[in-house]
């Protein structure tokens, strides 16, 4: 319970920062709208060519694209969060101070996760609602909102888990800023092979197998099944996606916690967690 309270105080800190600089929120909203609009126009331009490859989704390339982009953007923010949090705190010379508190760096990371999740959820939800009710992007009339939220949470957990694995490189590979290889590679593979912007069917068959190893493939397929085809989380169609995403989310989070904890111990035994200068 104290851990949650401690984490929430970091969440509150992010909120205070937003209140101080509300322009960054407005710019984030605009950026998300711009990104969605850009891909919306691309999909409008290409929709007639993509129909055949999208038979599973009633040939609707525009909805396919918008839903993919919205959820991918949201997950990307979570994916890079743990590493970015460590990097920011390190260069702000706060990391060691956070580590000296009872719950150490974990309360800080979890606090920022809660904030980033809520922040992105609000932005991407408004983008999605705008796309549906203003632009006219089609979604199923029978959407199970609970199924969509629960499945989205599995996607968030997986992204966070991979993010934690990546964050361990902050100490293991001594990558202190920029991007680290694990989340960078996940992001690149997801963009190319998971069907964010185009159906996987258009990828050359010789390299298409890569998509099986990218969690985003299952996450985006699953979320589209719920949003476009009105599938419930417990339907037979969703069963493989849910099972695989559960394995990915639990597996990556457990591995991420283990690797980051080991990396923290390694840092304490080596040059230290941060700098107090």
């Amino acid at each position, binding site marked *: 319970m104290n851990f949650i309270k401690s984490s929430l105080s970091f969440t509150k800190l992010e909120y205070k920062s937003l209140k101080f600089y509300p322009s960054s929120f407005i710019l984030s909203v605009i950026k998300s709208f711009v990104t969605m609009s850009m891909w919306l126009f691309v999909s409008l331009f290409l929709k007639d060519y993509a129909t055949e490859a999208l038979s599973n989704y009633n040939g609707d390339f525009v909805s396919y694209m918008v839903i993919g982009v919205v959820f991918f953007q949201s997950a990307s923010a979570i994916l890079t969060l743990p590493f970015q949090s460590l990097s920011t705190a390190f260069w702000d010379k706060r990391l060691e101070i956070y580590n000296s508190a009872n719950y150490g760096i974990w309360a800080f990371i979890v606090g920022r996760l809660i904030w980033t999740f809520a922040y992105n959820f609000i932005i991407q939800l408004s983008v999605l609602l705008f796309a549906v009710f203003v632009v006219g992007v089609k979604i199923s009339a029978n959407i199970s909102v609970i199924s969509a939220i629960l499945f989205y949470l599995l996607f968030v957990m997986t992204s966070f888990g991979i993010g934690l694995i990546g964050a361990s490189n902050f100490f293991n590979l001594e990558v202190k800023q920029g991007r680290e290889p694990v989340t960078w590679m996940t992001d690149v593979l997801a963009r190319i092979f998971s069907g964010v912007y185009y159906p996987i069917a258009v990828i050359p068959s010789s390299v298409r197998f890569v998509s099986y190893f990218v969690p985003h493939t299952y996450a985006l397929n699953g979320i589209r099944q719920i949003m476009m085809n009105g599938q419930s989380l417990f339907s037979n169609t969703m069963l493989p996606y849910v099972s695989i995403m559960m394995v990915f989310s639990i597996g990556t989070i457990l591995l991420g916690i283990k690797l980051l904890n080991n990396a923290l111990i390694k840092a304490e035994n080596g*040059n230290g967690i941060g700098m107090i200068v």
Partner: protein
Amino acid sequence: MAIENIIELENIVKTYKIKEGFRKFKPFNAIDGVSLNIEKGEIFGLLGTNGAGKTTLIKIMAGLLEADKGSGKVLGYDIYENHKKIRSNVSLVAPTADVGTDNNLTVKQNLEFWAVVYNLPKEKREERIDYLLTFLGLKEYENFWPMSISAGMRQKLAIARSLLVQNPILFLDEPTVKLDAKGAESIRKFIKKINVEFNTTIILTTHYIFEAEELCSRVAIMNKGKIRSCDTINNLRNNLEKYDSFTIKCETLKAKTIERLKLEENIIECNFKNNELKIITDKLEKTIDLTTRALRKENIQIESINTTEYSLEDIFIKVTTEEEKI
């Protein structure tokens, strides 16, 4: 009455790996065989130049960094086995006041934030924060943004944060660095007050010799990762009394001459600054004679010769340069 050691370190070694390029690291001995006992309730000073190993030693004692070799206990907790226990029972203030201070929160909100992070019980928070704000003279600034108060006030805020939980040990890493004379003086006053009021053991690092002299019951002088000398200032001074020192005022002096004098058997330390040659020796008369003859031989005009009293600065210079001479 038996003296209670709150920190006991034995032969601590810590080597950093300094990145030199891709997968290339160079070892750097930050701490090299340090043994130290710190008594409960004392203000202990770690004195040394930049890179002497003071901050590394503090990190090890605060449970933030693991030593490579040696053994030690802080508050009875093993420094290898109980990092977390040590961390949650000591407080640390970093050299720059801004570390850990959030500029988007007011002075009071900063303390409220850290009170939650430090698990201070809810019913005690308000009272404790109020007490600390008053105690450190921050009460009238409680609704100010940290950016709008002086560096000295921000340092007090950092100290207030570290005092939220009444831990028995407080580490202050260069607490007056970057402060003006007035701000520094005020912080020193509060360090003494914290020590008396809360019976907190305070370990502080400083570059400033006068600061250690004013605050500390004992000091350890560090150089190149080693403790060169550790005692009360009076004892350090008494130990040095087997030596004498004198100054010779003269206009110029060649570096070669100083180097030659340093090699003399009875000269412990020798430096030339502001037209004054200062020498510490274990044989005063012989050394004055030897030095004046050496200067005259080089046609250097001697304006005056004075014997001097020791300051902590003399002790510091002596212990940090003695080994280099050997």
